[in-house]
């Protein structure tokens, strides 16, 4: 019974990470479009940040903090690795709040300029930090919380864990975050470099340059082949 409860609780945390990963991937994708298409990228990013604040920072992290507190009570030595994770929950939330505020305040023209570039970089860094944080947490999940905690701990932890991640079910997600859910349902998504802008003329020049390189590369290789054929009788 206790083992099943422990597994259910750990599965809950892992499912939260699965939903978070899906949204992080979308944030990374949208931040690269923020400068070139702020009108379409901003609403998706705003909903993604709201999802992070409403679910991941307000439900998932307190759930993990309760787990870490139980571990601390049972085995303070093991907790030493976790104090950093608890700190990161606080700083992560502050960073997410700041980014959501910045996104809401910036005008479209600001997003096309330097401010948009900075914001995109900050979002990218936030995504990176969150991924690293998740990796460190998983290392903790795999290293013995099931060994340390007692059945009564798991029962208490499960009692306060009724809420489920909306990102685990896209229909539920769509009810609260329609633009984010719509993006996640797209069959094809385009990824560009952070801060990339639409520059058709530059792209045209690039295509021309590629054709010239292709032509001369072929010519050079054919010349080398021909030279080899001509030289062959003399080398014998």
């Amino acid at each position, binding site marked *: 019974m206790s083992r099943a409860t422990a597994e259910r609780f750990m*599965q809950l945390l*892992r*499912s939260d*990470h*699965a*939903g978070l*990963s*899906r949204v*992080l*991937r979308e944030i*990374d*994708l949208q931040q690269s479009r923020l400068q070139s298409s702020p009108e379409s990228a901003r609403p998706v990013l705003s909903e993604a940040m709201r999802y992070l604040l409403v679910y991941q920072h307000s439900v998932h992290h307190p759930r993990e903090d309760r787990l870490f507190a139980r571990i601390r009570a049972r085995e303070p030595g093991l907790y030493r690795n976790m104090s950093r994770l608890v700190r990161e929950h606080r700083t992560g939330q502050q960073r997410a709040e700041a980014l959501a505020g910045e996104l809401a305040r910036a005008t479209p023209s600001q997003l096309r300029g330097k401010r948009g570039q900075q914001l995109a970089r900050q979002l990218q860094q936030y995504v*990176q930090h969150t*991924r690293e944080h*998740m*990796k460190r947490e*998983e*290392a903790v999940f*795999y*290293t013995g919380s099931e060994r340390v905690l007692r059945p009564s701990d798991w029962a208490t932890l499960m009692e306060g864990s009724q809420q489920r991640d909306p990102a685990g079910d896209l229909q539920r997600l769509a009810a609260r975050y329609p633009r984010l859910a719509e993006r996640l349902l*797209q*069959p*094809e*998504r*385009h*990824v*560009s*470099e952070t801060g*990339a802008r639409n*520059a058709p003329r*530059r792209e045209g020049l*690039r*295509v021309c340059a*590629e*054709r010239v*390189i*292709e032509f001369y*590369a*072929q010519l050079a*290789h054919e010349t080398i*082949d021909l030279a080899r054929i001509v030289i062959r009788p003399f080398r014998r």
Partner: protein
Amino acid sequence: MPSWQTTTASLLSRLTVKQLLQRDVSVEKLRAQIGAIERLFPAHPPGFEVAHDHPLPHCDADWLRARGARTDRVILHFPGGAYVVRLPNMERAMLARLCSAVSARARLVHYRLAPEHPFPAGHDDCVGAYRQLLELGIRPNRIVLSGISAGGGMALGVLLALRDQSLPMPAGAILMSPLTDLTDPHDGTRVTNALRDPVLSHKRGVEMRAMYVGGDHAKMVHPYVSPAFGDFTGLPRLLFQAGSTEILLDDSRRCVERAREAGVDAELEVWKEAPHGWQGLPFAPESGRAIEHCADFVRECCP
């Protein structure tokens, strides 16, 4: 515009690899020249151990594990190389980056190559590798398949075979610029991207692909050989990644379309001007981002 690192790699590839692939050279010469790229990569990725336990009956396979890591996620990877050549060091280096990003270990299958061993030899090796993981007690929902280029097509072919053999499905599959149609269709991005693709050319494509089926062109429409012709019903979640200027872009598009028609959760990431196999370029920022996206996907499938 892509990063300067990717732009430089694309330029060098256009001057060398692409020219080599469209010239009339022997398989031995092709293997030797493409194999020269291997010198850029260490045989053992730093921080990882490469083990050869649990050998397969007909081919080599490696285990790749980060030292000291504890995980139950397994990435079963099929390498690329048009079913004719292989770059094991490059594949290991890429897999190591994926494994560290998502706390997983990897099984790299060096399936038998054509023309010495035409289809179904390599395909059987890969299906056998998956069966072996199940026999070792690894739960299917902790396994994610992955493959790059021809290895991506192989991964899809293996999924179709697993479904047909009523074996439990893995949690998901990552298909990096997969080759999914060996019939060489003369339309779509195979034509429109022919000049823009900095790596692949279809000038010798037909001949090289014919090697895989031992010259039996009728086999080219077999779904295990060209999964784009398959029925995707019952397959797990699929993530495709392809570059916008690749001739193989439509191979991914067609599969995503078929998969979604069959009710499979499939998505395609189109990376602007990324060259074929960019995920394997450790110095390119786009490669790092693409690997992180793959890691996110593994976490989504194998929480």
